[in-house]
C-alpha cells in the first residue's frame, strides 16, 4: 500500500566523504511525513552517517564533505538553513542514553529555555507534555528534581526522547536507540516509537532486523556506502528485489 503522506526529506545524488574516504555514494531517497523509516545494514555501511547528515550532526566532525542535495520540505538543509534552525525541527535520540547531568526537569526544560520560554508555568506544561508523550511521566512525576543520571538506562533513554520532544520538532532521528537497553526497556521504547508516529516523522537506524520489521513503515538497506534497496518494510522483508538484500535479511551475509 502506497501512503499518501507528503515528502518530508528528499535526498538526491548524495555523496559523503570523511577526508578521502567516501562513506556514502549517490544516495537517493524520500522520507515521508508521519512514517517510520528504518535504516538497516551491517556496521560501517553508512546508515548512521546518513542519519546524522539529516540534522547535520556530522558538521561536528572535521574534514567531512556532503555533495548532492538534502531538502527538508523543499528547502536545502546544507545551503539554506542555519544549522541551529535545522536541529530545532529535526531532533535526535542517540545510541547511548545521554541525559545531561542535571535534574529530570532541567533536562526536559533545556530545549524550551534555549528557545526563550522562561515562564515556569509554561515550562511545567511542556515538561509534563513531553514526559507523558515519552511514556515516562508516571514513573518520574514525583521526583522531577532528581538527577537524571540516577535513572535506569531505559528510563534515561525515554528522558532523552522527552527532551527531544520538548523542542517540538517535526522529525526525530534515532540512532540505534535501544542497542544499549535490555529487552523489556527495548519493547517499551518500540511501543513509544509507534505512538510517536502519529505526530512525528521518524527515521531510525537499527542493527536489529526484527525491530525494523516490528516498527517501521519503510526500510532502507545500506551496504558499503550504497543504498541497495528501499521499499515498504513488509515488501523488503518478504520479497526483496535485490539479491544482496535477501542475503542480508536471511542472515547469509558475511
Amino acid at each position: 500500500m502506497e501512503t499518501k503522506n507528503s515528502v518530508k526529506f528528499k535526498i538526491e545524488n548524495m555523496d559523503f566523504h570523511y577526508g578521502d574516504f567516501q562513506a556514502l555514494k549517490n544516495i537517493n531517497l524520500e522520507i515521508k511525513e508521519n512514517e517510520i523509516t528504518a535504516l538497516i545494514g551491517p556496521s560501517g555501511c553508512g546508515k548512521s552517517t546518513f542519519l546524522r547528515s539529516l540534522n547535520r550532526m556530522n558538521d561536528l566532525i572535521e574534514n567531512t564533505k556532503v555533495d548532492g542535495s538534502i531538502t527538508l520540505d523543499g528547502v536545502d538543509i546544507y545551503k539554506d538553513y542555519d544549522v541551529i534552525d535545522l536541529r530545532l525541527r529535526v531532533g535526535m535520540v542517540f545510541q547511548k542514553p545521554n541525559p545531561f547531568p542535571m535534574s529530570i526537569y532541567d533536562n526536559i526544560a533545556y530545549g524550551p529555555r534555549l528557545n526563550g520560554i522562561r515562564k515556569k508555568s509554561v515550562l511545567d506544561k511542556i515538561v509534563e507534555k513531553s514526559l507523558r508523550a515519552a511514556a515516562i511521566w508516571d514513573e518520574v512525576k514525583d521526583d522531577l528534581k532528581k538527577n537524571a543520571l540516577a535513572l535506569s538506562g531505559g528510563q534515561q533513554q525515554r528522558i532523552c526522547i522527552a527532551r527531544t520532544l520538548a523542542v517540538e520538532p517535526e522529525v526525530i532521528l534515532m540512532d540505534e536507540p535501544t542497542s544499549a537497553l535490555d529487552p523489556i526497556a527495548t519493547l517499551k521504547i518500540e511501543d513509544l516509537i509507534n505512538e510517536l508516529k502519529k505526530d512525528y516523522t521518524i527515521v531510525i537506524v537499527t542493527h536489529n532486523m526484527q525491530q525494523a520489521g516490528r516498527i517501521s513503515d519503510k526500510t532502507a538497506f545500506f551496504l558499503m556506502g550504497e543504498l541497495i534497496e528501499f521499499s515498504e518494510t513488509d515488501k523488503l522483508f518478504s520479497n526483496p528485489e535485490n539479491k544482496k538484500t535477501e542475503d542480508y535479511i536471511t542472515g547469509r551475509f558475511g
Partner: protein
Amino acid sequence: MTKTTVPESHRTHKYIDPEKAHQRVKKRVMINNIAHVLFFLTIVFAMAVLCVLIFNIIKDSIGWLDWKFITGKLSIKPEKAGIKGVIMGSALLMAVVAPVTLFVGVATAIYMEEYSKKGAIHALININIANLAGVPSVIFGLLGLTVFGRLFGLGSSILAGGLTLSLLVLPNVVVASQEAIKAVPNSLREASYGLGATKWTTVRKVVLPGALPGIMTGSILALSRAIGETAPLVVLGIPTLIMKIPTGVMDDFTALPIQIYYWTLDTVLTKEYANLAAATIVVLLGTLFVLNSAAIIIRNKFQRRY
C-alpha cells in the same frame, strides 16, 4: 506498557512559536560568535603579555648585555658589574640539584612502581608527594634555613641552597619518572623474567632504559624550575653582594634569580640597576629556553617508541 491516554489537543499543542524561535536563533548565533571572538582574545592576551614582557626586558637589557657583562665580576658600580660569579653560582647550584633529585627521584619512582605492593606505604608516599608539590616554595626555604642552614651548619652555602631546591622539585621528578616507568610495557618485563633475569636486573636493564627519555624530560623541566626559583634561596639568607666567584659547593654564592631580585630592589637607588636586572633576566630566560627546548626535543624524539 501502560497506554497513556493523552488527549489529542494536549498532545499536539505547541508552546514554542517557530517564528519567534527562528528570530531567536539569529540572536543566539550572534551571541555565540561574540563569545567565540572574546574567548579567542584570551589566547591573544596571553601571547600579548608574553610579548610585552619579553620585549620590555630585552629593551631594558640592550646596551648592558654583552660579553663583558657575562664574564665580568660583580661590582657596586652598575656600569662595571658583570655576572660571571652569578652564573657560576647557578651552575654549581644545579650541579647539586641535578644529581640529588635524579637519584632520589628516580629511586623513589622505582620503589613506587616496581617494588611497593600498592599498600599503605605506597599510598602514603603518593599522597605525601602530591601534597609536597602544593607547598609554597618559601616554606621550603624555611625548612632549608632550619635544617640545612642551621642544624647541619651549612649556612647559606651552595650545598644548603642546592639541597633545599632539590627537595622543592623532587615531586616533579618523582611524578615524571613514575609516569615514564608506567609507560614501559609489561611484556618487556615479562620477557626479561622469562630469560631468567632477576627483578633488579630487569629494572636496570629493561625498565630504566625504556623510561629514560621520560625521566630525562621530567628532570630537565624540574631543573628549569629550580634554576628560576628565588624565594627559598632568599629565605636561606644569601648575602646581598658577593664579589668572590664561587668554586666549590661549600662557598657562599649568589645565583641568577637572587641577583635579579637584589638589583630590582636597588632600582630605587638608580634606574641603571633595572638594566642590570633585565640583562640578567635575559640570561636566565635564555637558559630556560635552552633547557625547555632540550626537554621538548627529547620528548618528541623518543615519544611512543612502543
